[in-house]
């Protein structure tokens, strides 16, 4: 099964959770360590780690180890599968609108 498809699925799952979305948006503004996020969102460290794992699994963030700390940041291009997914919707409507135009040509005024 194509990995892009799996990723789109995981992105929706990952961003479906409000806490994870908040963490993702926060990381989009800049790099942060688990402890920074724990303080920022008032969520327990294990919970933050779990959220980060889901975001990482979806290809949305990645971690960089520095000493005892792991710093997380947004993965460039991580949202691309969603954009590709949108392209399918656009293709659907483009096709249907073409059909609509052909139909209108055959209809009585």
């Amino acid at each position, binding site marked *: *099964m194509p990995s892009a498809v799996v990723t789109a699925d995981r992105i*929706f799952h990952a961003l479906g959770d409000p806490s994870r979305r908040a963490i993702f948006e926060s990381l*989009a503004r800049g790099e942060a360590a688990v402890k920074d996020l724990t303080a920022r969102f008032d969520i327990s460290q294990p919970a933050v780690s779990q959220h980060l794992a889901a975001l990482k699994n979806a290809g949305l963030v990645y971690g960089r180890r520095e000493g005892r700390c792991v710093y997380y940041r947004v993965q460039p291009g991580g*949202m691309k599968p*969603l954009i590709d997914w*949108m392209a*399918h919707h*656009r293709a659907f*409507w483009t096709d249907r609108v073409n059909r609509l135009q*052909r139909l209108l040509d055959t209809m009585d005024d």
Partner: protein
Amino acid sequence: MTDSTASAQTETISLDLDLPHAPEKVWRALTDPALLAEWLLPVFDLQLEPGAAFTFRTQPYPGWDGTVTCRFVEIEPYRTLSYTWGVPFLETVVTFTLTPTASGTHLSLVQSGFKPDQKRESGGARYGWKMMGGKLVDLLARMP
């Protein structure tokens, strides 16, 4: 940040076209079940009333019967037609806007609200996601 921009861009699809047909005729194609079946999808229980529920039917898929559940949001004859467009994991809104022009009608189509559905995520959608597995793109090739 590029990714936040990309996120915002994924929330709407819009198409615009100029049609050499009167708004009344275009409206008919958008609201008559027999005509809808010809260009969009077979439609069931369609009643042009605000809040009324109806469905489109597309090919079934393992774990999904192919029903698109819809509800009218706005109906302004010959001007605006808007309804929700719900599939197992996502609810978007489709809006058609008709503007009379010298040569016919300007038709604008907007599908908005492409973002994770929290409400469903907590319940049914989790199942929805699982059952679709990795076949999302195949599915989307067949339906919006």
